């Protein structure tokens, strides 16, 4: 066995670090999907009538649409009737302080290295922790509410700020958008809601940690972020899920509204269970993320580091409606073993002088397949719009695949669109250079890959960038060039 093969084997045999599960007292709905389940979820959450109607509308659309088959993914048949669509830790009483949080839960976070206290004390990050679909502890709420910022669980927002929710829910991702978004709209259990009022610059990074915990429970999160005129917010989403043998379905929806002069920065680190080295198990991740730059000079920036999930189907998109609005997409997607990722973005230029930038870095190893799928559309009215896309792929080993599907549709003569993509392996000369400087091969590869992804990683907020770098080096150290 050559050294390369040895390193490769080492790398591919690495077990998932966050693979454990904690038994909570779970209130679970019976398996199956029908109108009664939708009504049950709505009733459990004490939702108003309009929201139930909205869910039912989405459900009727869901029944009409076929499962999409255009992606470059091999998706095993999903039995939507064999999933329980609601599970919540039994609510004993409303929690006000950290002391009241289930000690088991606190332990869970400590294992992940994201203890609430720690976060609260040291990093100044407000955490809206979501375990199995229901928010349990929300911190820093008082501090945020002084500024008029609303950051709470979705169900809380439905009851306390119904007008805001009603005004914005489903406006970017409508109830008939796509198969998985419809499913989410019909059965979403909880999520986060965030509102930044006019002219407010959110003083801290807002973050949620999602965890799928109960076995066989699809997690259907709904996130809604509304940034009013002149406001700024940076939102973090991080995910880890415990090791399971059966596949779990995750179909989340994230909607962002950016009004005039507002800026929203949305960062994700996704490290769900990718399945074992034979491709067994793992999370199916079908996410619809979309933001709209409603007002002039607004900006939405997506940053994602995707290392987990057996199947990833995710296209964070920007609709650049306001003049001079800006959309950005930075992505690092790493796949190993039998993971499959089909990810990318959509940039729809509608307003004048709109700009978008896409930087996508794909790294595939093992038997995995990594696809970039992007769509840049410049509408007729979008004068002087500008797009730059770069999507690079790195292949480690000769059994993996890298695919690029960029769609570029231009209808305006004054716009400039550039797209470039490369596929390659780590250059022997690069490794040689490092070796010659006394850096061993393993470190050299880690160095090169980190450098390769740096353009994206540096977009992450400090708190996250550490976790992301840890994840990347964990996945990639010892990989073969």
């Amino acid at each position, binding site marked *: 066995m050559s050294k390369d093969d040895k390193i490769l084997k080492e790398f591919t045999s690495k077990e998932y670090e966050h693979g454990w599960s904690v038994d909570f007292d779970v209130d679970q709905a019976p398996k199956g999907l029908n109108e009664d389940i939708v009504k049950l979820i709505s009733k459990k959450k004490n939702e108003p009538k309009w929201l139930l109607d909205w869910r039912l509308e989405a459900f009727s659309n869901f029944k009409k649409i076929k499962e999409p088959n255009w992606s470059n993914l091999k998706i095993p048949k999903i039995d939507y009737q064999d999933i329980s669509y609601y599970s919540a830790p039994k609510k004993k009483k409303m929690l006000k302080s950290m002391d009241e949080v289930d000690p088991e839960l606190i332990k869970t976070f400590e294992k992940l290295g994201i203890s609430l206290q720690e976060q609260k004390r040291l990093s100044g990050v407000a955490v809206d922790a979501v375990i199995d679909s229901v928010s349990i502890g929300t911190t820093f709420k008082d501090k945020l509410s002084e500024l008029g910022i609303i950051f709470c669980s979705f169900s809380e927002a439905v009851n306390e700020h119904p007008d805001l929710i009603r005004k914005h829910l489903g406006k970017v991702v409508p109830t008939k958008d796509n198969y998985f978004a419809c499913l989410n709209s019909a059965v979403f259990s909880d999520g986060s809601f965030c509102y930044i009022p006019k002219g407010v610059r959110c003083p801290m990074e807002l973050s949620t940690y999602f965890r799928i915990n109960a076995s066989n429970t699809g997690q259907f999160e709904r996130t809604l972020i509304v940034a009013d005129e002149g406001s700024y917010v940076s939102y973090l989403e991080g995910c880890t899920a415990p090791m399971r043998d059966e596949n779990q379905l995750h179909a989340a929806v994230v909607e962002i509204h950016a009004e005039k002069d507002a800026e929203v920065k949305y960062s994700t680190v996704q490290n769900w269970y990718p399945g074992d080295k034979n491709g067994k198990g793992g999370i199916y991740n079908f996410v619809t993320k979309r933001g709209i730059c409603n007002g002039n000079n607004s900006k939405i920036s997506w940053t994602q580091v995707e290392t987990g999930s057996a199947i990833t189907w995710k296209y964070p998109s920007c609709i650049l409606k306001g003049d001079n609005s800006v959309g950005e997409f930075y992505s690092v997607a790493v796949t190993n073993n039998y993971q499959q990722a089909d990810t990318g973005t959509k940039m729809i230029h509608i307003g004048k002088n709109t700009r978008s930038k896409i930087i996508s870095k794909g790294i595939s190893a093992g038997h995995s397949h990594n696809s970039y799928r992007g769509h840049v559309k410049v509408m007729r009215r979008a004068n002087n719009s500008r797009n730059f896309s770069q999507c690079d792929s790195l292949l480690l080993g000769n059994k993996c*695949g890298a*695919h690029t599907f960029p769609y570029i549709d231009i209808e305006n003569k004054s716009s400039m669109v550039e797209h470039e993509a490369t596929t*390659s392996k780590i250059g022997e000369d690069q490794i040689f250079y490092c070796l010659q400087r006394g850096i061993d091969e393993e470190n050299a590869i880690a160095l090169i890959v980190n450098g390769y992804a740096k353009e994206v990683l540096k977009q992450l907020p400090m708190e996250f960038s550490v976790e992301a770098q840890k994840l990347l080096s964990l996945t990639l150290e010892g990989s073969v060039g």
Partner: protein
Amino acid sequence: MIDTVDLRKSISIEDDNIIKDIKSKSIDKLKLSYKKYKEEYKYTPLLRNIEKKFGSFNSSKNIKKVDSYKDLISTNDKYYIVTLNGTFIENLSKIPNGIDIKNLKDLSKNEQNIFIHSYSKIDDSIDDIFSSINSILHSNCLTFRIKKSTILKEKISIINIVDSSKPTYFRKCFIIDKNSEVSFSEEFINITKDGNFSNSVNEIYMDENAVLNYFSTQNINKNYHYNSINVFQKRNSTSNFHTYSFSGSIIRNNLNIKLLDKSCFANMYGFYAIKNGSHIDNHTSVDHLDENSISNEHYKGIVDNGSNGVFNGKIFVRQKAQKTNAFQSNNNILLSDNAKVNTKPQLEIWADDVKCSHGCTVGQLDDDALFYLMSRGISRKDAISLLLSAFSTDITEKIEDKEIREEYQLMILKELEGLNYE
């Protein structure tokens, strides 16, 4: 969906059993290719247009008198091959030594076997519905056999005459034997002006060390055209394709190259300058199946009022094809606000030791460059055509033969005069 009963009826008149068999297999492929239609023809509504215009895919059975076309052939080329609605017209053609051109039906049993062995095997019938329809409905396959070690410096023109108000089908099969070198240029001349449809499928086999230069010129005004070229390359062979498109209601070009063996070269160059509602759709695919091959692709286009330019380039690098170099690039200039460009440069790679890249741009003329030229006393109009012709030079300079290169450069200059830049 197309009526298969009708199609089955049309092949029942075929007298050759082998061909009949191949054709009926093609009917089975229709279903497969129809499935892919939606994605493959996302921007090009060819099927809808043809069905609306002609109602049926069947071609006319009337045989025209050939003598009246004599005046059309005003080619400067030394050698030319003339076909009318898909039928080879031998007495109007001039064929050089070293090449055998015959109808598939007229070949001796032995020769026929060689062609049948390859015929309909590599066309894109599975992927493209128009190729499957061609496989079923063409009346005659014209075979070209370039004999071993034949080196022909002169270009051979293939002149296809379309004179029918019904769809017409052209089918050609080329076998280029070892160590031979040949150049073809193909064009379609439309006699009927009110929108006819020509559907052409070519299959080209290149044996070891063979060299092929292939030029297509498409200037067909308000007509519809489907053109599929399917190439199969053996070791050390080199193919150079040059496609120039200037007008057409809808033109769809499929260029599929399979690099079956080690050390193959494939070069694809294309240029389109379209205006007044023309629609050009270039779909190319290069499939690297073995080691050490190189493919180069460069398409450039200028799209003016009401026109739509579509480009879709696919590069496949299979697991076995290590040390592959594949490059692809597509550049577009939009001259008008109601012009459209849809482009999709696609890479699919399964091997790790490769160098692949693609690039794609959509933009406009550089105002600074325009200003510079105008400040030197060059009129705006001249400056524009100077810049546009410079844009096309990247493509034309790839033509090795000086005479042919100049011929195409002149052709482009003439076409560029008709474009406006606001």
